[in-house]
């Protein structure tokens, strides 16, 4: 399933980008090869600065020599001009060729732009690959912090007190884990962090639980039933307090959303549990590992 979703995202994305590019080629969205005629005037008697109009928008430009025109752009310039400029490596200036020029009229040719969508898609892919590493590296500190605190809480027995509160529920959710196994400590800490809306504590605690689940897993390449259940619980995010990001975005408005959020998240969590239980029953009945 994950293989299909993953490939689907890539294939769908690339096909769609290609489609848009072909449409752009047919309608010539970027006016490739079209000569623009514009009235122009020099700015304050200067010999190389002038103002002109492109796509009905007034712009300023420098004449570099008699053949090249340096058109200045800013964030408010027409979007298509910005795209062309970006594709040519400079988002603040667009270099156009002067075809002809008389006292009032200027004819210019802008650089051509082809396959713009595909280019930006590949660019986004590479940017995201870099960002993924940054994200993972950023996890190191917070990971180390919580793993350290967890170690203290484990050794001091503090976690056992937390576990006792939720033990019956956890034993039902994870029937195949030996009772009293330390993984229950990590799972309950992870759930507590989720419930309290502490996203950046929940991840390290959840990873710790995953590692312990992996130590109980027979097939180290394939997720066990317990891992799937645990992941489903995490993605459906049991929570009583709204996440910090939402508080930041919505401000005080967030307080009236608490009850709807609790209701909705209960639905998604119950669904997660039911679906995971059903799948695990089906897979075990067939006596084969369920392939993704």
């Amino acid at each position: 399933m994950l293989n299909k979703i993953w490939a689907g995202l890539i294939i769908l994305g690339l096909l769609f980008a290609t489609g848009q590019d072909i449409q752009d080629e047919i309608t010539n969205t970027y006016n490739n090869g079209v000569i623009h005629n514009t009235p122009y005037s020099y700015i304050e008697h200067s010999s190389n600065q002038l103002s002109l109009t492109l796509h009905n928008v007034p712009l300023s430009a420098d004449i570099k020599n008699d053949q090249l025109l340096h058109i200045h752009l800013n964030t408010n310039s027409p979007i298509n001009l910005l795209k062309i400029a970006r594709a040519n490596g400079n988002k603040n200036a667009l270099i156009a060729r002067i075809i002809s020029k008389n006292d009032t009229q200027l004819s210019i040719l802008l650089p051509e732009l082809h396959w713009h969508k595909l280019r930006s898609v590949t660019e986004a892919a590479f940017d995201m690959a870099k960002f993924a590493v940054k994200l993972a590296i950023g996890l190191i500190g917070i990971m180390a912090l919580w793993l350290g605190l967890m170690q203290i809480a484990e050794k001091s027995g503090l976690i056992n007190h937390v576990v006792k509160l939720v033990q019956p529920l956890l034993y039902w959710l994870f029937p195949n884990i030996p009772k009293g196994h330390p993984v229950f400590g990590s799972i309950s800490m992870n759930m507590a962090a989720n419930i309290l809306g502490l996203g950046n504590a929940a991840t390290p605690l959840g990873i710790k639980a995953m590692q312990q689940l992996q130590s109980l897993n027979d097939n180290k390449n394939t997720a066990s039933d317990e891992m799937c259940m645990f992941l489903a619980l995490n993605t459906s995010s049991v929570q009583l307090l709204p996440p910090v990001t939402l508080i930041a975005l919505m401000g005080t408005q967030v307080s009236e959303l608490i009850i709807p959020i609790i209701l909705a998240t209960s639905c998604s969590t119950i669904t997660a549990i039911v679906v995971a239980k059903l799948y695990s029953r089906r897979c075990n009945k067939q006596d084969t590992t369920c392939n993704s």
Partner: protein
Amino acid sequence: MQQLSSLILPLLILAIVCYGLIKRIAVYEEFVDGAKDGFNIAVNIIPYLVAMLFAIAIFRASGALDFILLLLTPLADLLNFPAEVITMGVIRPLTGSGSVGVLAELINTHGEDSIIVKIAAVMFGSTETTLYVLAVYFGAVKIKNTSYAVQAGLMADFAGFIAAIIVCLWYFS
């Protein structure tokens, strides 16, 4: 609310350290011992995260999402709920930053009091970035075959979205 959230963390840290001291644990040594795995785990996650995030980036940058929304809008009209919230429903399992962006944009265009923003916010608050969590959690233990975890996660998301729409339309009417 904000105060409660900002109090929990320091109290938790205090409780862990104090309880450790009471139980005569070598707190500093245990902390360092536990923390040493942080680096390895983060590095293990990298390939999984790159794989997942780059595929999502291609999908988002291509504008395929807008097309899907275009297809789903008649359905929303038919079922009588604001089509704008579908954006949140589709993007929430894919990217966390993307869904924050969508929510901010909806707040900008519709205002915090609108039912659209409320539904989107409840969707945001009631589920997680499923594919990211999947990549991080399974990446940390080097699980490649995720079995039925995706199905369970995505179905839970879907149930959460439907619930968010129904609950909000009922609760705020």
